[in-house]
């Protein structure tokens, strides 16, 4: 992991990175949109979001592959009750053995569900390794190759773990869009969200690549989304409402929200974000946010993070 975070800022000026990215995109003929779902805190709702983005995009008729890159403790197979035959571990091993005869299709676990309206919707999943030991042996460079092999999918959704690991950074680099999520409840969450955002910014991605998404935005808490926007210095691209009943029902029943809670605000929210990522006309969604009454908290966070000015 050494050197992944710190050194790149000085190494490559912004414009160069930008060009390099566009260039790579054209030369390897990749056509999928890669959306990575990332956060710098656990339990933020990445996996719920990744699964339901995949389900919503598939429901819109797109071909979608959901890649669980939380290699050690991935939840996609748990949340969808999948029993994969082959995993990313097998894919990496076989790829290394024989690139020529490697077919990514052999490593996909198909998933089909029925929406509440009776539509059959399918997408594919790449499951994480079966044991942590296997996860530990996976090489970042090989995972990059595997993701590039998914170019026949219109959308590739990558569910990540909540750290800046070498793997996550490589996947963030490959991504078209980084869906960077936060739940703003306590001080550590604000701090980690801010640190995560600053670190992403230091990677010199084009600004529009990083989409800040607040989850559980109307839950009871001491800090409001708009306070956080000021501390972070950027606007949320989207807010998902707090909807514990729907989220937990979906996990309990092992199915996407479209199947178990089609009309809930959370389902509509994730669908609508999927629509934005696939250039659909927008569904109207009420904006939720708590009032900014705890100015002292903002001041505390500001002092803590050493932010000189809140004015933008």
């Amino acid at each position, binding site marked *: *992991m*050494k*050197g*992944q*975070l*710190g050194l790149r800022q000085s190494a490559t000026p912004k414009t160069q990175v930008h060009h390099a990215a566009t260039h790579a995109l054209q030369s390897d003929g990749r056509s999928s949109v890669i959306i990575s779902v990332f956060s*710098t*805190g*656990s*339990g933020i709702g990445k996996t719920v979001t990744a699964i339901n983005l995949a389900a919503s995009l598939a429901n819109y008729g797109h071909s979608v592959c959901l890649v669980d890159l939380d290699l*050690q*403790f991935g*939840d996609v197979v*748990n*949340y969808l009750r999948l029993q994969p035959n082959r995993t990313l571990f097998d894919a990496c091993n076989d790829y290394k053995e024989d690139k020529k005869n490697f077919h990514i299709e052999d490593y996909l676990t198909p998933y089909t569900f029925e929406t509440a309206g009776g539509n059959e919707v399918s997408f594919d999943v790449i499951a994480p390794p079966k*044991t*942590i*030991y296997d*996860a*530990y042996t996976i090489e970042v460079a090989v995972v990059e190759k595997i993701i590039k092999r998914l170019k026949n999918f219109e959308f590739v959704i990558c569910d990540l*773990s*909540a*750290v*800046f*690991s070498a793997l996550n950074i490589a996947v963030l680099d490959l991504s078209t869009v980084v869906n960077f999520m936060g739940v703003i*409840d*306590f*001080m*550590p969450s604000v*701090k*980690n969200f801010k*640190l*995560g955002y600053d*670190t992403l910014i*230091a990677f010199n991605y084009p600004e529009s690549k990083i989409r800040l998404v607040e989850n559980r935005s109307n839950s009871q808490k*001491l800090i409001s989304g708009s306070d956080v926007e000021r501390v972070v210095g950027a606007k949320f691209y989207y807010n998902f409402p707090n909807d514990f009943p729907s989220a*937990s029902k979906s*996990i*309990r029943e092992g199915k996407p929200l479209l199947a178990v809670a089609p009309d809930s605000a959370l389902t509509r929210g994730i669908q609508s974000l999927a629509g934005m990522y696939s250039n659909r006309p927008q569904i109207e969604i009420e904006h939720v946010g708590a009032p900014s009454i705890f100015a002292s908290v903002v001041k505390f966070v500001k002092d*803590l993070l050493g932010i000189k000015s809140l004015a933008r």
Partner: protein
Amino acid sequence: MPYRVVLVEGDPLMMDKLTDIIQNSPEFELVATYSRYDQALGQSAIHNPNLFLLDLENPILLENLHNFAKNFPKAKILGTISKWSEDFAYKASVAGIDGCIIKPFTPAEIFSAIELYAERGKKAPPRIISFFSPKGRAGRTTLAALMALHIARKSDESVALIDADLQFGDLPIFFDIQPEHSVVDATHDVSLLTPITFKPYFHKLSDRLYLLSSPDRPELAELVAVQDLINVIAMAGDIFRYVFVDLPTAFNPISVGVSEFSDACFVVSMINTNLEIIHMKRCLDMFEMDKHHGRKIYPVFTRVNPCNEEQREKMSLELGYDITAIFPNEYSLVSTANSGQILRHVFPKNNLMIQNVEKIAEQIMSNKM
């Protein structure tokens, strides 16, 4: 009253130097010097010494160090070494002497060492206890902080918290401090430090409770090499009787290396969808493969409801491993910790979370865990 000093030193040049230093200081009276272990042990009593400075680089002396501790229980006993060594320090603690000092030393350094080891507590090897979790938000940091707090309050021994969650450590927020030093400075400097010069890197939180913070920027995490961090923890164990290390989530070189070095590791997961049992099992299987390291693994779950013995047994059965403890969902406590109030807050006696934490802490203190 000056200290009555017995000096044992095998190197004649060093003997001259140390003799000089001690004789020139009014705080010390040099009552005897020896170059041999057996003479020192056999003859010292007659001088009624209350401070021994013993050459640990003398192999026979080192082997018999415990005899000084046994024969002179009231005296301060410092081992002298030319260069900081975790190995010597550990042997000194096993032998039951106060600690070590790097020679040559100044009179002030002798006093600093005496003071440092007096605050440390029992003359015994350190307890290095690590806190691991497969995922974040598991209550790992809260548990570590509450246990450390309890031991610092209830024992007369000192406790260090080391925040090794290098990218996203939260302990500075829990204790509402702005630390001057971090693990990054400590690991950078460790090869030049001694216990006396290292202690100021810790932020004193309250009586006998100290914190070494995580860095304030995630990219600084990359500057920390595992072996340096282990050296830092080892030296912390010489300064503090208890060292609690909050690890980064999941298995990575830092969490694996440090948990192997610790003598006990709590594996912390919360219960939310119950699928967490699967993750815990994967963790424990992984630790099981690694068990030749000899440290004890204690699986615990937080946010368990109902939180009773029956539930613990039921979950243990499901997990296939015995769960050491379960903790209830205690929103007010989480909120207290997360808003930097943990030190000032007075927890009600009947709080089940606190009661369960204290039970574990008591077992650690009595070496039953």
